[in-house]
Structures are given as C-alpha cells and as structure tokens.
C-alpha cells in the first residue's frame, strides 16, 4: 500500500478523532480566558499626563490638535479631515447610501442598497446581516432618527466599532523595556508600519530600538535597517536564518543597557494555518516577555484589501500570541477594510492604527468616527 494513501488514512482518523474528542471535552468545561494574554497587555490604568505624545501624532501634517491638557481619553490628535480625505476613494461606494439620508422608512430597496454597500466593503455576510437586523429593529421601533436611514446606519456602525481605542502603551512595569510585537501574514506591511512608528517616535524625541526578528525573508533586515537609518534609531539584527528569539533577546538587552524604553519587534510574515510557524511566534513572544522585556502590545497588521480571511487571521494569531489591536494598512487604496467591523464584532479586537501610504507620515491613530464618516461620505 503506498505511503501516500497510508498516511492519508491515518491523518483522517487522527484529525477527526481529535476533533471529536475535543468537541466532547469542550462541552464539559466552562469558558476560560486565554492564559495571561491580557494580563500584561493592558495599557496603564491611569494614562500618564504625556498620553497625547504617546499616541501617534500625524507627524508633520496635522498640528497637535489635542493639547496635553485634554483628557487622555481623547481620540488621536489627527484631524478628522486627515483620515477622511485619505479615505476619499471609498466615498463613491457609499454615494448611494448617502442618498438614502432623506429616506425615513426602511423598505426593501433601502435594505438592498445598504446590504450591497456593506458587502462590497468586505463587511461579510454575517455582520452585514446583524447590522441590517439592527436597522430593521430601529425602523420598527420608529427610531430611525432625524438623519433617516443613513443616520441610523452610521449609528449602528459606530456602536459596532465601539469607543476610540486606547493609546498604545509605551511603558512597562518596574522599569522593564516595553515591547511592541508586530505580527501578521505575508505582505501586509509590518516592516513599513514599524518604520513609520520609529519615525514618529524619533520626531517626538523618544528613543526606540528596532528588532529585526524577521530572519526568514530575504533582505528583511536590510529593509528595516533603512527605516532605522531614516529615523535615526538603533537596530538589532542577525544573519538570515538565525533564531528570531535570539534577535529579540539581544534587542532587549541592548535596549536595557542603553536605557531605551521601547523596542519595536518585527517578525516574519507567516500564514496562520502553519502550526510550526505559529509555534515559533509563540516562542518569540515568550522571549520578548522575559526580563528585561515586557510585551505591552501585540499588533496584528492587516491589509485593508483582505477579505473574510482577516477574521481567521485575527482569531488564529490571537489564540497564539494574544493580539491587542490591529493595524489596518493600505487604506489609501480602494479597499474599505470593512472586515474590521466583523473582527470587532466576532472577536472584540479593535483597530488601533491605520496605514494610508508608504511614506513615514502615512500612519494615523484609528478614529472610529472619522472612519465611519469617511465611509459614509459625510
């Protein structure tokens, strides 16, 4: 009997048997939170007074719109117009939805228009259905509001997205080196995002160290090195094929010895359905979380052109290393990135940052109001 067929049979049996076993075992236990994932990652309870500078300034573009006196809960200092104009390409999609503003009743036609607009934005069938249901409930309760259908839709989307996300945590406990770990599948923009963040930190006079822990991709460290040079910050790298954990380890110790409070760690792009690669990533996180380091943010970088697979990415990466937020990149294109609505709804993972181009300045803090307004073309 050929080897190919043999292992296939065993594979079936084991896979299915394990699935069955797991299903049975699961039904008997109560839900638990993933161990430790959230413990070390909450941003400091009382945001330090310099919170606005901990957020990402829109670099050279927008003036510091949020003076330090403003409550730390304030949303990004970026002007809403910044995000809106960047997302201009998305507006036309919702032109027809905008046209529904005057409509105060929710008929078949209106529902179809809204459904089409949401599906085209990659919101997905499940979340779209939920939003439509909420709209219908509002209409039934005669609670559509003054802005008619469009206004009600805007309200639903904002409710789904939740409050503006917290600023990225920049400090760790007891003088440990804070680590931001960047993870995601191939080609989404992890390295570029780190480069932009490094530039932003440098522009504010904050010291940051870059860890080129993508030791797989050809010239990945070279790519990050160029960003480090532009930002004028330190970089730790190793030869291709080296252990990524070792790079992180070296980076932490270099940062500690030079009193650099924050390390941005790049990792190799990896598809979430590859167990060995996820295991490697778990190991990298463990190393990053050991003294003198402490992982304070795990950012999943997601390409805005991604369809429903983004939900799976978020789920798998979160299970593996505990994701604290999403960086949604390439939003300057035609894709709307609506899948983040589904991710928020199904997994509770918020978008923290938005990428809108390839230059250093093209990274903005996520403002749900601006995001939805831009989408609805207000």
């Amino acid at each position, binding site marked *: *009997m*050929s*080897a*190919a*067929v*043999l*292992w*296939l*049979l*065993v*594979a*079936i*049996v*084991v*896979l*299915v*048997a*394990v*699935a*069955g*076993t*797991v299903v*049975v*075992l*699961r039904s*008997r236990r109560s839900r638990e939170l993933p161990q430790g994932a959230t413990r070390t990652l909450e941003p400091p309870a009382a945001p330090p007074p310099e919170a606005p500078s901990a957020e990402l300034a829109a670099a050279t573009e927008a003036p510091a719109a949020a003076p330090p006196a403003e409550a730390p809960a304030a949303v990004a200092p970026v002007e809403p117009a910044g995000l809106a104009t960047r997302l201009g390409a998305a507006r036309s999609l919702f032109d027809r939805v905008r046209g529904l503003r005057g409509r105060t009743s929710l008929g078949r036609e209106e529902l179809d228009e809204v459904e089409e607009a949401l*599906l*085209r934005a*990659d919101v*997905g069938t499940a979340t779209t259905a939920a939003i439509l249901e909420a709209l219908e409930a509002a209409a039934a309760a005669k609670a559509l509001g003054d802005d008619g259908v469009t206004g009600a839709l805007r309200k639903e989307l904002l409710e789904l997205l939740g409050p503006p996300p917290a600023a990225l945590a920049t400090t760790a406990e007891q003088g440990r080196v804070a680590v931001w770990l960047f993870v995601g*599948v*191939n*080609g*989404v*923009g992890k390295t570029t995002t780190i480069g932009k963040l490094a530039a932003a930190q440098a522009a504010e006079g904050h010291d940051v160290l870059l860890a080129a822990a993508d030791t797989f*991709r*050809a*010239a*990945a460290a*070279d790519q990050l090195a160029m*960003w480090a040079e532009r930002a004028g910050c330190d970089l730790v790298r190793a030869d291709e094929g080296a252990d990524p954990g070792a790079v992180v380890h070296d980076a932490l110790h270099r940062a500690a010895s030079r009193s650099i409070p924050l390390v941005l760690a790049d990792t190799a792009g990896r*598809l*979430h*359905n590859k*167990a*060995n690669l*996820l295991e490697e990533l778990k190991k990298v996180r463990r190393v990053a979380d050991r003294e003198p380091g402490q992982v304070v943010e795990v950012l999943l970088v997601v390409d805005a*052109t*991604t*369809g*429903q*697979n983004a939900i*799976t990415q978020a789920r*798998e990466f979160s299970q593996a290393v505990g994701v604290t937020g999403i960086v949604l990149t*390439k939003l300057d*294109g*035609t*894709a709307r990135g609506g*899948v983040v609505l589904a991710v928020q709804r199904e997994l509770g993972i918020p978008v923290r940052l938005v990428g809108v181009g*390839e230059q250093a300045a093209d990274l903005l803090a996520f403002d749900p109001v601006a995001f939805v307004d831009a989408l609805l073309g207000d």
Partner: protein
Amino acid sequence: MFDALSQRLDKITSGLKNRGRISEKDLEDALAEIRAALLDADVELGVVRGFLDGVRARCAGEALSKSLTPGQQVVKAVNDELIEILGGEPLKITYASRPPTVILLAGLQGAGKTTAAAKLALWFKSQGRSPLLVAADLQRPAAVEQLRVLGGQAGVPVFTRATDPVDVAAAGVEEAARVGRDVCIIDTAGRLSIDDALMDEVRRISARTDPHYTFLVIDAMTGQDAVGTARRFHDALDLDGVIVTKLDGDARGGVALSVRTVVGKPIVFASVGERLADLDLFYPDRMAGRILGMGDVLTLIEQAERSMDADVVSSTAQRMMGGEFTLDDFLAQLAQVRKMGSFGGLMRLMPGMNKQMREAAEQIDDKEVDRVEAIVRSMTRAERADPTIIDGSRRLRIASGSGTTVVQVNQLLRQFKDMQKMMRGMASGSMPGMPGMPGMGKMSAKMARAAAKRLPAGDVPPELAGLMGAPESPAPGIGGTARTAAPRPGGKKKKGGRVTPPKHR
C-alpha cells in the same frame, strides 16, 4: 460532495422529492444559500450575480437526477459552472522567435511579486530556459536586494540599475538580449491601481519593454476590492494572465473567480508556499472545491506530504490496517498531523464536514488539543498499550498529572475506544460511523476517493476499496468528474505491490 453546502441545500429542496423537476422557487432558495457561500469566499458581488445567472440557466427545467439529491444536483451544477469559468482556455507559454521572451509582473503592494518573479525564474529554468531577473522595484527599501538574494537561490542572474524603473526595465531587456538569456522577468514595485502617476509609470514600462506576457500578481486572500483593481490593471496593461499567491493559506480564494470573470484571462500559476519551488500550475477543480468551502483535499495531501515523516506514518498505518492502534500510535500521529498546520486551519481544508463538525472545527483551540495530548502523556507506557487497565485511581492520577478532570479522562478513553473500533472496521473493509460524530464514515470515504484519484488507474489497494464503498449516493467525486470508478473490493494488486510515490519537492 460539498457536504455542508449540500446539506443546507437539501433542507431547502426537500420539498422537491414529490415533483419531477427542480422548481423555480426551490432553485431560488438554493441559489440564495450559494450566494452566501460565494460571498463568504470573497467572490465579488457583481460576479456572484452573474455566476448565479449561469447556474440558473444550467438548472432550468432540469429533471431530477436518479442518483443525486436535488441539493446535490444544484451543487453539482454550481461546481461544474465554477470549473468551466475557472478553467477555460489555459495559457500555453510560447517563446518569442527573437529572444528574450519578456514577462512583466504587476500588482498591488505585498501581493508577492518579487517572490513570484524568482519562482518563475526557477520554473523557466526547469523548462530548460535561461532566464534573467530584472529588479525594477526601486521604490521599496531593499527590494532589489531581496530579488538579488532570491535570484542567487534560484541560480538566476539579477540585473538592476540605480536610475528609474522604466529605464531599468528597458535596459534589463537589452541586457538579456546582449548576454543571450532567452527569458526576461521584470519585477515591478507594488502600486495602487488608482495612483495615476504610478499606473502611468507601469504603462510606460510596458510600452518600452513590449512584454510578451504581462501577469497580474494577486493575493488569494483579497476581498471584494479585487475586481476593481484587476480591471484597472487590465485596462492599463492588457494582461495575459493572473498569478494567485499565498494559496497555501486557508483563504477560500474567491478572488480567482472574480478576476477570471472580469479580466477574462486565465490564471496561469498558483503560488503555494514561501520556497522557490512552491509554484504550481493552476488547477481549476481544486480551486472550485476550495471556493465552495468543501476543502481542498489535494492541497491538503500535498501539504501533508511535504511535512510528514513518512516512516513514522507508514509504520503506524501498517499496524492500523492490521487492526492495531494504540494510544502511543495516536500520540505519534498527532505530532505528525500538528506539523501540518493549526487545527482550525487544517479542518477547513478537509472535505465533507457536516455543519456540526465544521462549527466545532472553527472553534478549535490548539490549547484544547494540547490538553488531549497532556492526558495521553500522563499515562504510563503500560496504560497506553492497554487502556483497559486504567482503573479509578489511575484515572485520578492521569487527571491530576495533566491538569484535567477524571470526567475528561473518561471521555477521552471512551472516544479512543470508539476510534479503535472504527479503525478495526476500516481494516476489515466496512465503514461504521462513530457515535457522536456523524458523517465520519462519509468523510473518510471522500478522502479515500480523493487519494485514489492520485494513484495510477487500476492501482487502488483493496483496503482503500473497502473504504470507498461507503454507503452514500454516488455523487461525482471531488473535482467534479466521475472518472474514477469505484474499484471492486479484493481487486488485483499490481505486480510487485508498489505504486509510484508522488513527487516530493
């Protein structure tokens, strides 16, 4: 076939049994389900509409089949329609009479162009050609360096210049002609299709280099945006084909259908991994199954082939076929299977999962699998060899050793016993189901059939034959063709008893 989908459809079309034909209303209900499945697979909305029209035409007035349920019949029509669209005229590369044959790659940022360029170079080399890689992405930091390194791995020279992309591309083609390389592959920078300046630039590259083939490189996980992007690239460059990348992921890949429909050009290659050798020709039937969410068994098989340790697997499998399967075997196999991918992701690639299993599969936490493993590891050798000796106090010990409860240990042992029974049943050629896991028999049968398709015709071993005779309506096998006839149990083995093993990369 397409179990989850057909089961959903069967519920809708159950009223059909009394009628001779598929009625319009029932068809519409069925098509609504298919619409949802396609949208979940990221097929573009407009493409979905057009596609459903095609299916409607196929099914209109069709008489009910004698061997398929109405739901299966509709799904078969969908599958056939998908394969037809995805397949169509394949692209056959013909080489320029005056070399080099110029190939231009374009696409969005991060699609995988640079890796694809190197893979193509390796592929052309394997076809006996001498390619030259041209690094015309001067935009992304270290992109040139990346291509240089990959070119080195592929054993293909890389040309570049520190001028501008149009100049580099043109000079690259000249260089290829000058040094006698007969294929010239030009990698370009990723660009937004709405960036006028950059789209103009790539148009100029195309004008200057006059490529024989222009391929759009697009990521398999792309969502609804794919169509607009593809259209604009096609308008600008007059594409000849499409390369879909990252198909080793678990994205359903509806982008393939969208782009094929809108651009009307064939998908030439599928990129299925990060190694340079991971470039396949595109298989429409596999893509069809994947899009419909019925899994991609053949890709699963290949992934398994690549990562599993054949010796470990085959020795255990031999014993299994003899009706033996111990917890030690289970542990060993578990390790092998885990190499293949995360459980959630792996389950998605498996066909024939019914709704219950699929939902459970979506939720599978690798930590739970860890728990199962921990329980087995907490047993002694003797206990693993013969679980019947595991009494109350042993169960207690195992539970505390693995951080679980006695109840959970009991359940595992019960499940394992059932599994052993099923294995013995498989070995003897019958196909008992597993209590609590309906559909197991069907699923194994499907996978067995898929495996059989890969063997040279007539070479199906009797053990497999037993599996394939599972009680089920004879729906066409995975891949939409009914070519593989179920072999008679106890058929002749080939002389020597060996089958040519599949190619290992």
